[in-house]
């Protein structure tokens, strides 16, 4: 644990910023994934499905950039972490990439053509493409917090020494089920907030049902994390309990039909979960599973001070600007959408004369 003492302020700032970027990604794309998974569950008719996808239409791509920024920031600020993690978690990341490719194209292309076969095929891509990342990011974070087998190369580099199947341990799989169910709940709450009519009613009901399941998974997962993998950190009990409180609040607000509050509380739940997990992880960024062998820490995985300084200035200037214009997008598209707003649902936007 001696490495912890060497951590400088900039490294700490960037560890926190990586947590912020993943929070942004989970809060924003979390509901995208949730809506995608619920597409065939809530969207029974073509109009309903199109209305659901339209709630995401102007937003999903901007939301996904949070992942790209998190990846880029990981590369820039913690190259050793990025290199070991991405090469070590190769196959899960491959699945996530394939899912995101299919899903992104599906969202953009689905409604451009009138054929129902065409649309059913893209529906599969949307559901699977939303399901896999929602599950696999939880599995990945579970493994990061739990620690993995790490070995030192002759040149001194620390690389992943386990296999693909080592990543599928019960704790990490529970992490996957936690993110999956949390994202579905978050997506249902988002849908209830952004729609009216039949979609709103079903979304509200499903949020309450899946929410209970998510609560059970999340509580067991965070307790297990705190008791087994917290590296002696105790302050993380605070965000854990706060997160639990927010989630209860989200479910109550959902029950009362206060959708704005429900969405805010569910977003805060995800934020608290990320804070708790990153807090437990510290001072590591990728611990060794035995907590004895070689490990990557905030101190030994980071970039040079010069690079971190430049990146800090860039992040301090740009992040508030990004937050402002993304918030503005959400304001522009604040209006609720319902199945009855979709004109000529069976038609494709490339088949219409005016689109």
């Amino acid at each position, binding site marked *: 644990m001696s490495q912890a003492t060497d951590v400088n302020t900039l490294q700490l700032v960037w560890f926190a910023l990586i947590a912020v970027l993943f929070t942004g990604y989970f809060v924003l794309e979390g509901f995208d994934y949730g809506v995608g998974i619920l597409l065939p569950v809530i969207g029974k008719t073509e109009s309903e499905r199109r209305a659901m*996808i*339209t709630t*995401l*239409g*102007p937003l999903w*791509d*901007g939301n*996904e*950039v949070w*992942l*790209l*920024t998190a*990846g*880029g*920031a990981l*590369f*820039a600020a913690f*190259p050793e972490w*990025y*290199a*070991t*993690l*991405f*090469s070590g978690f*190769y*196959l899960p990341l*491959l699945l996530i*990439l*394939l899912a995101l*490719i299919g899903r*992104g*194209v599906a*969202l*953009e*292309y689905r*409604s*451009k*053509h009138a054929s129902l076969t065409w649309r059913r095929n893209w529906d599969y891509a949307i559901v699977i493409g939303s399901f896999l990342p929602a599950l696999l990011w939880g599995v990945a974070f579970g493994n990061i917090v739990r620690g993995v087998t790490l070995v030192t*190369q002759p*040149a001194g*580099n620390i*690389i992943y020494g386990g296999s693909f199947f080592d990543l599928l341990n019960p704790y990490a799989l529970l992490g996957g089920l936690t993110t999956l169910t949390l994202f579905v709940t978050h997506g249902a709450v988002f849908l209830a907030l952004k729609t009216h009519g039949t979609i709103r009613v079903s979304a509200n009901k499903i949020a309450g049902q899946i929410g209970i399941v998510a609560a059970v998974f999340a509580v067991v997962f965070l307790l297990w994390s705190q008791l087994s993998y917290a590296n002696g950190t105790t302050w993380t009990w605070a965000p854990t309990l706060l997160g639990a409180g927010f989630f209860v609040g989200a479910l109550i607000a959902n029950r009362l039909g206060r959708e704005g509050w429900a969405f805010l509380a569910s977003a805060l739940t995800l934020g608290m979960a990320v804070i708790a997990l990153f807090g437990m992880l510290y001072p590591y960024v990728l611990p060794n599973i035995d907590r004895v062998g070689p490990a990557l820490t905030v101190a030994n995985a980071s*970039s*040079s001070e010069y*690079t971190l300084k*430049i990146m800090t200035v*860039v992040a301090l200037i*740009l992040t508030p600007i*990004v937050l402002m*214009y993304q918030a503005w*997008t959400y304001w*522009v598209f604040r*209006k609720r*959408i319902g199945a009855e*707003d979709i*004109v000529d649902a069976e038609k494709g*936007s*490339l088949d219409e*004369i*005016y689109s």
Partner: protein
Amino acid sequence: MSALDLSRWQFGITTVYHFFFVPITLGLSWLVAGLQTAWYRTGKEKYLSATKFFGKIFLINIAMGVVTGIVQEFQFGMNWSDYSRFVGDIFGAPLAIEALLAFFLESTFLGIWIFGWDRLPKKIHLATIWLASLGTMLSAYFILAANSFMQHPVGYSFNPENNRAELNDFGAVLTQNTAIVAFVHTLSAAFLVSGALMAGISAFLLMRGRAVDAMRTTLRMGAVVTIVAGLVVAVSGDQDAKIMFQQQPMKMAAAEAIYETESNVPFSILTVGTLDGSTANCWLCIPGLTSYLATGDFGATVYGMNNLQAQYEQDYAATGITDFKPNVPVAYWSFRLMIGLGGLGTLFGIWALWATRRRRIPSSKWFLRSAAVVPFLPLFAISFGWIFTEMGRQPWIVFGLMGTQAGVSPGVGAGTVWTSLIAFTLLYGVLAVVEVKLILRTIKQGPPTNLPADPYAGAGTEDRPLTFSY
């Protein structure tokens, strides 16, 4: 095949594929913004019709660029983790800034542009497409600055303590001549492709009598863009070659298949030789031109690969690399295909302007046939340009600093890379078919003709049905 070779194939396939969509995005975003501005200024329906039409093609294209771009960022870590460790301190920063500055701008404002026709005031809606275009351009700059570091590393020092290259002058990385010339060359090539695409599609529709007013305008607009961009591509390409003769002489010697150091070196336009140095590479040659292209002097000395090989064996003995020559036929032919195909695209621009002079509408069968082919010529020219510049840099991943073999992920086996290589190739193949099908459908449908006089009418009014939905 080893994990190294497979990772190289995967990087090559996914990058060439990704870069089919990138130049069209880079150029077409500005052209669509230009069309919408023309409509904003003049109120003429033909500009609105053209904005909607090319906007659709642009959106079908960019969806593919966006999703295949995620792979690019991830595979440095997945397949090239030792490279990522070695240069992450330098290479990561432009990538992160690209995402934070450019990708957010592009994706957020594009979302607003697509869905914002009836939600925003006219002027603000116009601003969103310009901001999205600016995002695409900024993204090109940062990724090219990162790539230029691999071609010609600057602004760093080697830290023996942790065995990696560390940044000490970010300004140098962003402003070195390699990066600036690469940016101008890539961006102008993107406009060349987009201009040719616009001209080709417009010519096809015009000759079928579809939306004649709009298509005649966009045909001429595309042609002018193609010609101007073609000139900038040529000038910047010449500059780039001169810089590369200094910074990466081996790459340029391979491009010309020059084995022995000589003066007054001719430029080989075509060859029937084997390119292995056993036969002369001159079948059709212009005397002294290579010397001139390298330095501006027809008599100048140009280093040959054999001499460079001997010199590098001494300079870079510590790297363990024994063969410093890239694949010569690949370098030689990709270089010529780049120039030839790009040049043909520009010639079509001139032909198109001539064929539409003084209100004429082209009628030649050959013009129509060319129009169908011409958008692909500069697009493939760009692919060959990247194949040349990346294959020509071999055996280096970062020139002079790290061999490609040293950059590959040590813990990732051949079976794993086979899995991803096959998965990406299959998925990309299917999506290519789908994408082309959708674009052809859009072209067949043609530009909208019965547009409402003011698509913004009623903007801000609540409770009107959506004019656009997914």
